[in-house]
């Protein structure tokens, strides 16, 4: 679907922020698929077992692949080992900081917090900043001017996306933010979603991150090798591929400013290996609609509500067959988006039908 548009303002302190608030898109009521309280309660139940096994496997694979990389360092045999280590470190950390930020991975609170802190460092996402930005992302998912985590603002920055296959643009931005935060400041946008009481933590953690990176750099210079950085720091870059591959399927190319996660999120079927790496975030409609359901219960939640959801994508290939041409078209036509087909659309969204407030008249 395409519509006549004006340029959107994706900042959190701009024109579209005010408009979103004025027309009721901020902190609004969202559509929720019908599911019984009893069934949802069962799905929301916490357990340490699945995440303990998942985390043990993740750390074991990190250790073994890292050991292989260390042993073969200096030969080409080190490449596959560091490739695996990098993907586990740079991409595997993405789903882990995310799930632990919701407090749903483990039942035990401190376990969520420990894995959260480790994974945040691995993916270079400051823990306090991202906890609050992700909170806003769930309140106002792809609401322009409100959501700080819109991965692909329109028109899409294709070069930026390609650079982020190795986390180049995102890490550059993250390092700039670290320096700002380490100096005791926040950006104007961050001030809109990080409360005063949390800001001290932001500054101290930024200083800690910078100290760790400085330590690794000094270590590399001291021994005349980049080997320490191959284990700490660089994997955020060389292992980032799956962050983008998986992450773009979540919302890219879909509608904005709609109060229905079925219209702005994708559920994509994936193989068990990918689902391990991604902690079932391929069930993204389900995750957004019921964020308190732990990752291990998302397949069951999917089965429970799928009759009221659009048809899921049968694999990454099918998802990208839609995403790539959509993003390329949005470069020329920012108003274009993929309109998901809802089952029983006439009664599927009884309220909050979604407001395309930049549209003049939708047209095919």
């Amino acid at each position, binding site marked *: 679907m395409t519509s006549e548009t004006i340029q959107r303002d994706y900042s959190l302190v701009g024109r579209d922020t005010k408009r979103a608030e004025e027309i009721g898109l901020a902190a609004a009521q969202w559509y929720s698929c019908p599911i019984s309280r009893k069934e949802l*309660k069962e799905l929301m139940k*916490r357990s340490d077992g699945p995440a303990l096994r998942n985390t043990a496997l993740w750390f074991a694979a990190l250790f073994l692949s890292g050991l292989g990389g260390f042993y073969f360092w200096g030969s080409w045999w080190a490449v596959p080992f560091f490739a695996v280590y990098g993907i586990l470190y740079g991409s595997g950390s993405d789903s882990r900081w995310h799930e632990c930020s919701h407090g749903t991975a483990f*039942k035990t609170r401190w376990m969520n917090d420990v894995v959260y802190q480790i994974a945040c460092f691995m993916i270079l996402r400051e823990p306090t900043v991202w906890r609050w930005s992700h909170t806003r992302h769930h309140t106002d998912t792809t609401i322009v001017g409100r959501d700080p985590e819109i991965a692909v603002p329109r028109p899409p920055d294709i070069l930026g996306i390609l650079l982020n296959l190795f986390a180049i643009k995102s890490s550059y931005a993250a390092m700039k933010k670290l320096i700002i935060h380490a100096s005791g400041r926040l950006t104007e946008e961050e001030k809109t979603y990080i409360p005063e009481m949390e800001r001290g933590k932001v500054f101290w953690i930024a200083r800690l991150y910078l100290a760790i990176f400085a330590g690794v750099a000094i270590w590399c210079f001291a021994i005349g090798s980049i080997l320490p950085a191959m284990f700490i720091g660089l994997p955020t870059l060389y292992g980032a591929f799956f962050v983008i591959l998986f992450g773009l399927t979540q919302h890219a190319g879909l509608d904005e400013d709609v109060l229905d996660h079925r219209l702005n999120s994708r559920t994509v079927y994936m193989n068990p290996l990918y689902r391990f790496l991604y902690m079932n975030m391929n069930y993204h409609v389900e995750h957004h609609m019921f964020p308190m359901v732990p990752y291990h219960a998302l397949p069951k939640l999917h089965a429970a509500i799928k009759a009221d959801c659009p048809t899921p994508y049968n694999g990454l290939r099918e998802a990208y067959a839609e995403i790539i041409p959509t993003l390329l078209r949005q470069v020329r036509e920012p108003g274009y988006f993929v309109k998901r087909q809802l089952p029983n659309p006439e009664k599927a969204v009884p309220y909050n039908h979604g407001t395309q407030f930049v549209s003049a008249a939708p047209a095919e």
Partner: protein
Amino acid sequence: MNTTTAARWIEACEADAIDEEDVMRFDHDGHTYAIYRSPDDEYFATDGLCTHEQIHLADGLVMDHIIECPKHNGRFDYRTGQAKGAPVCVNLKTYPVKLDGGKVFLGLA
């Protein structure tokens, strides 16, 4: 059970309408409340909306004496209303509750 004195008692629900370790929404006079039944079979009541972003707590998860908001994982001790950390910073207001004839009554000022 939180049964301090109240100016008036409002019948909220049947006592067995709430499962153990669960919560129910109760609306009265334009205000929404959450009524809890703890694992040790005691009843409590708080304001019904999370102090973070006005989400109905009755859609959340009760774990022991904690209610977790369904939207952002904000956690409160529903016995005292105490906020247990980010993203919730403001405590919940609590209300007295009493049982009478198999029904739960909410005490309002």
